[in-house]
């Protein structure tokens, strides 16, 4: 029981960065913009967060810096993909390549340093519930924050006027424009939200998960999150479920080793990527269903008027 509880708690921790970045990308894609630059924005968030926290001594300052870095990166993307109507695939790839290079460049001086990251804060009473208490209510503050953001995103999309406008822009920018909506403004905001969330997810890695900075420390999580949004058929509840599922896959090798399974670390490290492909297969084999769920204008640049 003890072991299971610990595994579940570790699953939530491993799933949290995925949840954060995937919620951001979910909003972004619901507005019709596909940003493949998640990996680059996360890396920038991770390095900015670490650098700011190290030099200021405050983790909150680190978080703010990470979010700003993510937003800054996403605005670069938005300028290309939304204002200049460039190919979103190419622009997103550019963002990832640029972010990978820039973060490694900026972070070169921080390799090998460490800070005191976020630690667990138990919520009184709730954390006394067996199993669930440890898994959800005895975690670091960012886990709580991610659950709060999840709730906000879910309510925003379903219950608010803003969510309706966002979905309208994603399904049919022409119709939204005809109804007087500023399509480009909505898309800019959605992209910026995605950037902020990716920055936050990066900071989770460098300030809580492993409180240090190494080059390419995201290890493909930005890409896994993109697959996660497809897996979740663009619904927040399924993003939550999927994030923890992928979180479980990414700690499976630790669990197996803990149980005395003798296998190579490298082979087990493939698991999250294999699981991602498997999930894509399960979710995509029926193209009609994929079409039904995809925001209709996803990946299509929009130019107002003329």
């Amino acid at each position, binding site marked *: 029981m003890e072991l299971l509880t610990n595994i579940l708690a570790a699953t939530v921790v491993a799933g949290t960065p995925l949840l954060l970045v995937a919620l951001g990308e979910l909003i972004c894609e619901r507005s019709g913009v596909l940003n*493949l630059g998640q990996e680059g924005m996360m890396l920038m968030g991770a390095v900015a967060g670490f650098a700011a926290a190290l030099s200021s001594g405050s983790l909150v300052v680190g978080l703010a810096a990470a979010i700003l870095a993510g937003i800054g990166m996403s605005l*670069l993307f938005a*300028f*290309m993909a939304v*204002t*200049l*109507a*460039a*190919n979103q*695939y*190419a*622009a997103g*790839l*550019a*963002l990832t*390549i*640029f*972010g*990978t*290079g*820039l973060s*490694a*460049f900026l*972070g*070169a*001086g921080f390799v090998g340093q460490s800070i005191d990251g976020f630690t667990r804060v138990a919520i009184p009473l709730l954390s006394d519930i067996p199993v669930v208490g440890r898994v959800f209510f005895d975690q670091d503050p960012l886990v709580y924050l991610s659950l709060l953001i999840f709730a906000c995103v879910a309510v925003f999309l379903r219950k608010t006027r803003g969510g309706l406008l966002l979905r309208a822009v994603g399904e049919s920018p022409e119709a939204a424009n005809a109804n007087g909506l500023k399509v480009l403004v909505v898309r800019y905001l959605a992209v910026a939200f995605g950037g902020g969330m990716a920055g936050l997810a990066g900071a989770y890695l460098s300030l809580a998960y492993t409180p240090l900075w190494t*080059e390419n420390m995201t*290890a*493909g999580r930005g*890409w*896994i999150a*993109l*697959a996660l949004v*497809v897996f979740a058929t663009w619904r927040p509840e399924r993003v939550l479920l999927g994030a923890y599922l992928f979180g479980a896959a990414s700690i499976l090798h630790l669990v197996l080793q803990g149980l005395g399974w003798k296998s*190579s670390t*490298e*082979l087990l*490290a*493939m698991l999250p*990527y*294999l699981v*991602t*492909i498997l999930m*894509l*297969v399960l979710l*995509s*084999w*029926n*193209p009609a269903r*994929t079409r039904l769920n995809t925001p209709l204008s996803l990946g299509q640049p929009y*130019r107002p008027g*003329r």
Partner: protein
Amino acid sequence: MLLLEKRPVDSTLMRWASPVLALVLTVITGFVLFLAMGKDPVDGLKFFFITPISDLIGLAELGLKMAPLLLCAAGLTVCYRAKLWNIGAEGHFLIGALGASVMAVQLVDNSGFWVLPVVLLAGVLGAMVWAAIAAGLKTHLHCNEILTTIMLNYIALNLLLYVVHGPLKDPYGFGFPQSVMFSDSALLPALIPGTRLHLGLAFGLLAAVALWVLFARSFIGFQLNVVGQDHRAAAFAGFGARRLTWFAFLIAGATAGLAGASEVTGPIGQLVPQVSPGYGYTAIIVVFLGRMHAVGIVAASALLALTFIGGEMLQIAMNMPKAVTGLFQGLLLFYLLTCDAFIHYRVRLKPSAHQSTKAAVTAAHGEA
């Protein structure tokens, strides 16, 4: 107010001027960056762009880095022309290196002219199988090729790390994760004696020629172009999208696999964990910068090869982080895509609403 206006016809001039403009903008940014870091910008740019290739050894090193970029980019061009977003060149490359290494270690006690071709073929076939996974996932299970190829890259990297730490590890290698040195018969001959430049560059240039023939002279190249430009038109014409997808992915696998195989049988001579400094990803920039054209990618691969050795030079000469290479490459692609917008659009001065009303009023007065 500035307004972006769609051109009636795409600008051919801008299509070819855009990479040059992007390079100029990148250099300017680099200049500012050096200043901001308190380094001499002229020296910095000289160390990055000129010093590395100012002698024969340097030029040979440029060719050495150019070979894998050119091979990977040639294969990716076939995919991107058909709008198949294969990001998997890195994975194909690693599997190519892995396949060739496994064969070379098997044949380490053999000599003869046949050893090298067999080793290279093992790498090429391995990478083609790897690319076929992504092709099959796309054509039969409708999986997005961007995501599957990226995942396959990470899997390939871990597979290579497993093999080099496990089955292929040299038992007498003092615990280092590396294979035994290959036999001389499994090594690529040097192109210029006395330098590290090997036959791989010739493979790259041949691939560029083949690419030109494919798109300028062959029916299948035409079909790939049509599929890329208008999927529906291609379907009406009866061009099999599945068949073309398989063709493009297998070509990409073969060229990148050959690049990987040439890397381990060329400058390295054994399998090591750091086979690739990201050639497969940089090749994506080469394709865009080279305008998906055979001649263009040759020039672009030379420029990006320079970013690798320029970065190393800056590290040695000015004590800058090696990551300056990645930063430069990212900036270049960024500026390129920005400049590319002006292939389809032009900037026009649009009078603001207030001004245009005033103009209309003045005009009305003039008439009266």
